[in-house]
């Protein structure tokens, strides 16, 4: 039993899910759900469809090259069962996935950090420019802090609503 990758969106296909299409030249296409299958039948290129992993990798949204990818590689040679080795592997896999996940997260954070810096600069600029909307410039000159003045509002007691029609 093997977990396969969907040809279109690159998500894992668990047993009992999805559809497999074998073309006349014996190439096998596996799809995780009918959404991917239908997109394939429409001859859409996954590299152009925004929500697929292929697009994300191609456009640098997700991490492409990393040493953690080397660990998971399909080997076509059968190997004899070795309990010691298997135990080691089972211990190693969670560690590797953790590292991989943190690295992917960091990649995305790094990608978005430029935006953060820009946004902060923008906010600061807006604050400097438009502060006059909330605090009069003369007041600002005297009192450089940005604490906004508290305003006193009159609230009267019981209101009776018997208002006759005007006019």
């Amino acid at each position, binding site marked *: 039993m093997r977990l396969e990758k969907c040809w279109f969106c690159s998500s894992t296909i668990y047993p009992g899910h999805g559809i497999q299409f074998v073309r006349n030249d014996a190439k096998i296409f596996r799809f995780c759900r009918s959404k991917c299958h239908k997109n394939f039948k429409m001859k859409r290129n996954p590299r152009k469809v925004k929500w697929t992993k292929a697009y994300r990798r191609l456009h640098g949204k997700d991490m492409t090259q990393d040493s953690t990818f080397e660990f998971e590689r399909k080997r076509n040679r059968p190997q004899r069962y070795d309990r010691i080795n298997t135990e080691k592997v089972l211990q190693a896999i969670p560690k590797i996935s953790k590292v991989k996940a943190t690295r992917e997260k960091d990649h995305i954070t790094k990608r978005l950090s430029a935006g953060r810096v820009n946004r902060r600069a923008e906010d*600061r600029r807006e604050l400097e420019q438009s502060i006059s909307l909330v605090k009069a410039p003369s007041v600002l000159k005297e009192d450089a*802090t940005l604490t906004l003045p*508290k305003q006193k509002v009159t609230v009267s007691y019981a209101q009776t609503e018997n208002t006759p029609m005007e006019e």
Partner: protein
Amino acid sequence: MVKYNFKEIKVVPSGKELVDIILSRTQRQTPTVVHKGSRTKIIREFYMHKVKFTGENFKKKLSDIIDEFPRLEAINPFYSDLLHVLYNKDHFKLALAQVNKARNRISNIATDYIRLLKYGDSLYRCKCLKIAALGRMCTVIKGIGPSLAYLEHVRQHMARLPSIDPNMRTILICGCPNVGKSSFMNKITRADVEEQPYAFTTKSLFVGHTDYNCLRYQVIDTPGILDRPFEDRNIIEMCSITALAHLRSAVLFFLDVSGSCGYSIAQQAALFHSIKSLFLNKPLMIVCNKIDLQPMHALSEEDKRLVDEMKAEAQKTLSIGGDQNGEQQVLFTMSTLTNEGVSTAKNTACERILGHRVELKMKSKKINDCLNRFHVAMPKTRDAKERPVCIPPQVLEQRAKAQEGEQEKEKRKLEKDLENENGGAGVYSASLKKHYILASDEWKDDIIPEIIDGHNVADFMDHDILERVMELEREEGMRLAGVAGDESEINGDDMMPEEREALNAIRKRKKALIQEHRIKKSTAESRPVVPRKFDKDRQFTTQRMGRQLSGLGLDPSKAIERARSRSVSRIGRKRERSVAVDGFGDDSMEIDNEGKGSYKKLRLRSVSRSRSRSRASIEEVVPGKGFKDKKQKVKAIKLGKKSVKKRNKDARKGEADRVILNMMPKHLFSGKRGIGKTSRR
């Protein structure tokens, strides 16, 4: 087209049937209706189409018949002779010629009448012409009716002819009637030929197949031949003569030494000598059958002499290379009843025909092309090392044991026995892992994990994986340290909470401005510019101004005073006492104050700026401009503000789509459909 079975010839319909078929086809497949009033061209075309269609179909059908039957010149001479013997070549050819003539006649009729139809002027005339044409064609077919019947008869018989391959290795069995040819045939092949005690049980050729040395041989059983002059022979005998004459095969001449067939050995010998010309160039064998009735040594001198004569004849046909066993290769004795000598006869016959064929091939020119392809490659010895045959030691042991003659074979315990011991098929399930070759035997029962956490375990298998993982973690630690440094840099630039608050306030203010502007814009054309005294909404009160200014942090008192002192209503009034700043406005400004004449106890409450400015409190809303009361006006103001929101024309997800409270609202999923089906409401 014509293979060595004539089973694929199509059925020949009789004359009447043919006429029926074609006419009904014409009726079905051509247009059926034409009107008197249509143009002449249309009428003519209609009838011409019918005549042409019928003519072509007849022609096609007759052509098919002619093509399907074999041309006697074009097929193997054995078959052409056989057909001649059975059906008389001339009669056959005549019938086909008649069909051909009819075909030509029909096409002539068709062309003639089409030419006439071109000048038909009325519907009636065209119709008559068509009837005449079709009628004549049908008469022609009626005329060849007997030929068609004969051809059908011939076809049926031909389909039942045995499929003899003239080029295959063949063994022919011939002899007098009732000598035991069919019984021999039944012994060596699977053909179930009828054997009966009366003569001429076999009335035609029968084919069987037998195997020898992985090769297939055809065996042909013939009807018995009588000693008669050639011209007097009947059809049945002619069949066997034809077979003898044309097929290149080994001939087994059967002799009944007991005479129980009704013919003495002398008579049989006479027959032999009369047809021996047919045995030229064929490996000949004499088979003495029925020796259980008359053993060979008990033959009379006369008979022995005759048999020897025949044997001598047969030996002439022997190949040069095989005269060591001359005696054994030519004369056989057997009994089909007791199966004595049957297999030797068959084997020798097969070998002889094979040898004969190989010899012929070797002598022919074609072999030179093939000879260069026969080459057994022997590797040249490149050094003095001896390389004997490699036999595994186990095999040597077994051979030694077999030589010593140890009878007992050690019966290995089979898995099946194990199964039976432990409760049978349904109870015991064999351990498939028993013979696994692993580093340690304890591991045989392990359940091997294949999948973990969405990964295939097999993809990670590596003997040094733990070391690599440790290195990876070390790298990761170093990388994280670096990343932490960057993070602190970036995060250091963040804003203070007060700055955040101020920014939010700015943004809110901007939004409010935009909304106001949109409201103004949308009603710009219908909003009149009204002088202040008719302003019912009380937009321009000092209270408001005071509130707004204090929201900005300025002290409004001076501004309010100034405004009041300059107001229109004050013109001409004497100086009055200045009024208190905080919200307690002069009642004289608000003339039409609703019901609040006296001073009230006011509670002063400090509220954050956002609340104070954005919403006109319900007290301030003055019903006017057509609204019945304050509540209605408030609602109207609310609706007005909602309506200037930008529409979501991009159909992107909006606020209302974040949470769908009811996934299946009842009104969408129940009830009768106004339009459409339930599956697609």
